């Protein structure tokens, strides 16, 4: 099963490599990993997407908790939550037809064109992973020049908070 694990950790150099090292040393899957400081600059928040049996996920959360730099964590997949990922995608947009088509697609997916050049458009799109996949499917494969995805971030709905 796919799990999203949110981790609050000390914003210290080396903290990220402890997590990455843990996953490689113990052979856990890692689908994506995002990290940035929170409103409290001494804390970083990491979102990890991983897959595994219930036993493995249990070990992953225990082993993460055991890292001295980890302050708190939650497997947000357990409860109601929101998941978002950011994608920037650069597509070929040469003639008027192409440009119109890309623009239309972007609107349907509630994306935004954030850079316009003679022959390219760059689009910003957020959503869950499936939505981003769907967009990639929907545009003409040959026109895609570059994509970059942030990996998933997530947050629990309502009163459920991960803070210290």
């Amino acid at each position, binding site marked *: 099963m796919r799990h999203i694990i949110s981790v609050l950790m000390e914003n210290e150099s080396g903290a990220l490599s402890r997590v990455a090292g843990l996953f490689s040393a113990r052979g856990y899957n890692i689908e994506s990993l995002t990290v940035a400081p929170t409103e409290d600059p001494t804390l970083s928040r990491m979102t990890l997407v991983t897959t595994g049996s219930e036993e493995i996920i*249990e070990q992953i959360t225990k082993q993460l*908790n*055991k890292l001295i*730099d980890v*302050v708190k964590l939650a497997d947000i997949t357990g409860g109601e939550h929101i998941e978002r990922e950011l994608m920037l995608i650069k597509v070929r947009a040469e003639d008027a037809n192409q440009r119109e088509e890309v623009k239309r697609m972007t609107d349907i997916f509630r994306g935004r064109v954030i850079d316009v050049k003679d022959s390219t458009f760059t689009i910003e799109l957020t959503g869950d992973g499936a939505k981003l996949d769907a967009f990639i499917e929907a545009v003409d494969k040959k026109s895609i020049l570059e994509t970059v995805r942030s990996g998933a971030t997530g947050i629990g709905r309502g009163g459920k908070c991960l803070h210290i």
Partner: protein
Amino acid sequence: MKLSGAEIFVQFLKDEGVKHVFGYPGGAVLHIYDALFQQEDVKHILVRHEQGGVHAADGYARSTGKPGVALVTSGPGATNAITGIATAYLDSIPLVVITGQVVSAFIGSDAFQEVDSVGISRPCVKHNFLVKDVKDLAMTLKKAFYVATTGRPGPVVVDIPKDTTDPGIKIDYEYPKEVRMRSYNPTVKGHPGQIKRAIDIITSAKRPMIYTGGGVVLSNAGDELTAFTKTLGYPITNTLMGLGAYPGTDRQFVGMLGMHGTYEANMAMHECDVLIAIGARFDDRVTGDTKQFCPKATIIHIDIDPASISKTVRVDIPIVGDIKTVMSDMNKELKAGKQKPDARALDSWWKQIEMWRSKDCLRYDRNSALIKPQFVIEKLYEVTKGDAFVTSDVGQHQMFAAQFYKFDKPRRWINSGGLGTMGFGLPAALGVKMAHPDHDVACVTGEASIQMCIQELSMALQYNLPVKVVNLNNRYMGMVRQWQEFFYDRRYSQSYMETLPDFVKLAEAYGHVGMRIEKPADVEGALKEAFAMKDRLVFLDFITDQTENVYPMIAAGKGHHEMHMSPERELA
């Protein structure tokens, strides 16, 4: 008080109560060595190889319960220390290892003797730190000792760039008495509800079994465990790491369990209906095939590390907490005495166990014309009245020591169980002797293992550490040979020790006493003579039977009920 980083380091050790540091100098730690030179409170012990230094600090820690401290230089000093650090990590031993580092401005430039010590040690430490600013030094050291010694203990590395200890930069120093870390708060007290549930199950068992490990030793909970076991009257087994936490000579003790455990311990594991696991981590040497592990049992597990619980074997009642605290809570519940064990069921369970015990699974040929390794350990036990500190290396001799020396006290049996590090025994024994100068200390070793850290015979002379080296010399990497005999059709690939040194002369070359013993009749006399030489290190080279194997044995991946017994046993 205004001090340089190097002076802060030394002053901090004093304030923290550290008496001994095992180390080896080099460029990156020269400022520290200069500060050590100018004081007398912290004694520095010069080892002969950094691996030996960390093992010595480790033996010191295992025998005292206090953190061991090692100091090494950058680059090769740090890499040499890694085997020692990993050894401590796998057995959860509290160590603080200080590695020198190149000047901060040079970090990352492939500078002379630069390695990424934090990166290299990361997978085998509980935690590590890099201290780039002298202002952070005292607090970081405090955190290092705190993390190493609390919760599930473990080694902590503190990497200190040379400029952090610069004698030209002095700052105010005050000993940080306390430390708090928001990200690190080990659970000490067990959940009362879980404890109650556990007591219900424990007291209603028909075929109970207590299985305890190194955690009881680490938690200094031998007394609590003994009270618990005595009150209940249940059988108890220890892992290799847990020996001595319950008296090995007591009737309720059924011996070690696992791959080379006793028949009675392993059979009782297989047949029990309630398993009470305490500070043990269900290692594969213990469980064998996890699918066949304790197939009939409800499992209770007490451990301070949640990650140890249900890691390899699913547990029914987990209790997270420190054993000493949890066991005294349990003992209170038992004393209150609402629930009592089922005396009749227990009686027939013990009858069954005594039947298994009567198989006498550790029997060996006592009439052999050759020295049997088991016999040497039995005599060692007698001569030292069962009260020595015994360290060991890794191999058959380690198993014989574990099976035949009956440890009645915790912290007396000191060996590398998790990593299985050959070379551990001698330096560990020297660390033990440093901490317990008035006690007998024996290092049980093999002719292969001893050669991995033999250079520490030199340190032993310098600091007058008269341990007794009991070399069970079978001219084979016996444990390897045994596997080749059983599983590789006797193809003894590279397991014969060619061109062995003359250990007697070698011991003498290092300034010690050497003895070679070739006949069973001479074993006891030699041991007595050696232990009578209180102020000399004696190297006893016992020429033992080359063909002896360790029994019983459960082949890797088999169940507890599928034991190989010794040929003597099968004949009987």
